[in-house]
């Protein structure tokens, strides 16, 4: 496995693990507070929609000329990555609250208990699970497809994403509790750096620029973004903010 392939696999794995952890919390809360059968039906329906999207868009993306694909997908990844990174910097700098799966679970559970109940299929449980898995899964699908298509290795990206989901589900099933010990905020920081690095690299290549050292520029870019982010976190901490915790 080349360095670029390893970077791709690690980036997709981490991004997918973060999203899978958040989706797992929603499904666990709704399933345990309401009805497991309806909740799992929602998960199944969302999985079918996501699989169909990947099956249709995956091959379609590989038909686009590489330069155009890299420009568009690199630009989108950069937009996506910079937004992840901005939130991660603001969290680390104490400006916005850090994410806490235990609190997110408690909030989802309280909302699920408060919603009216029905006989038979529980539409609340079905819809909340469906929406949770679909929205978190769309981000995973987007990252898998864009990374995979740009590196001409959709199977590797899909395998890394699937492995992350399996690991998170395995850990969640073993614990039967929200995965509060997953270092989600740190993982989001790393994913923000990875998405932005690949985004700027592919976006510039698609725009016609050449990187000195080709793929060797990737770790240098990542370090530059990491250094800039670290300086911003330090500056925010110096400016002073009281740390907080968020649930969403």
């Amino acid at each position, binding site marked *: 496995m080349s360095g670029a392939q390893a970077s791709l696999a690690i980036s997709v794995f981490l991004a997918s693990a973060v999203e899978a952890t958040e989706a797992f919390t929603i499904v666990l809360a709704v399933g345990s507070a309401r009805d497991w059968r309806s909740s799992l039906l929602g998960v199944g329906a969302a999985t079918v929609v996501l699989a169909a999207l990947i099956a249709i868009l995956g091959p379609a993306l590989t038909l686009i000329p590489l330069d155009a694909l890299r420009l568009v997908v690199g*630009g989108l990844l*950069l937009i*996506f990555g*910079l*937004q992840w990174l901005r939130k991660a910097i603001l969290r680390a700098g104490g400006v916005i609250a850090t994410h806490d799966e235990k609190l997110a679970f408690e909030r989802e559970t309280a909302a699920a208990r408060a919603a009216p109940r029905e006989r038979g299929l529980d539409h609340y449980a079905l819809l909340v699970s469906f929406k949770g898995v679909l929205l978190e899964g769309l981000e995973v699908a987007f990252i898998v497809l864009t990374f995979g298509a740009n590196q001409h290795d959709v199977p590797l990206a899909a395998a890394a994403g699937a492995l992350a989901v399996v690991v998170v589900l395995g850990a969640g099933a073993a614990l039967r509790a929200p995965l509060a010990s997953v270092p989600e905020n740190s993982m989001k920081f790393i994913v923000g750096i990875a998405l932005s690095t690949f985004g*700027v690299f592919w*976006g*510039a290549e698609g725009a016609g*620029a050449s990187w000195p050292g080709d793929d060797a520029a990737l770790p240098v870019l990542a370090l530059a973004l990491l250094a800039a982010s670290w300086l911003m976190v330090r500056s925010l901490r110096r400016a002073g903010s009281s740390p907080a915790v968020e649930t969403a």
Partner: protein
Amino acid sequence: MTGGVGGAVFEFLVGDDWRTAAGVVGLLTATALLAAASLPAWPLTVVATVAVLIWSVKRAGTSRRRAGG
């Protein structure tokens, strides 16, 4: 319905800060112009990316602090 789907796609891709998206479009356009003129474009791409990030963080930090009083 179409507006709803379009809005959801926009929200998914652009997120809560359209200015970052506009900055990325601007920096890639400038990169393409420099590359088309056979000039080294990557230094501008790197500097502009970091500048967009700093701008975005500063703006968000300032508005959050203002909102928090």
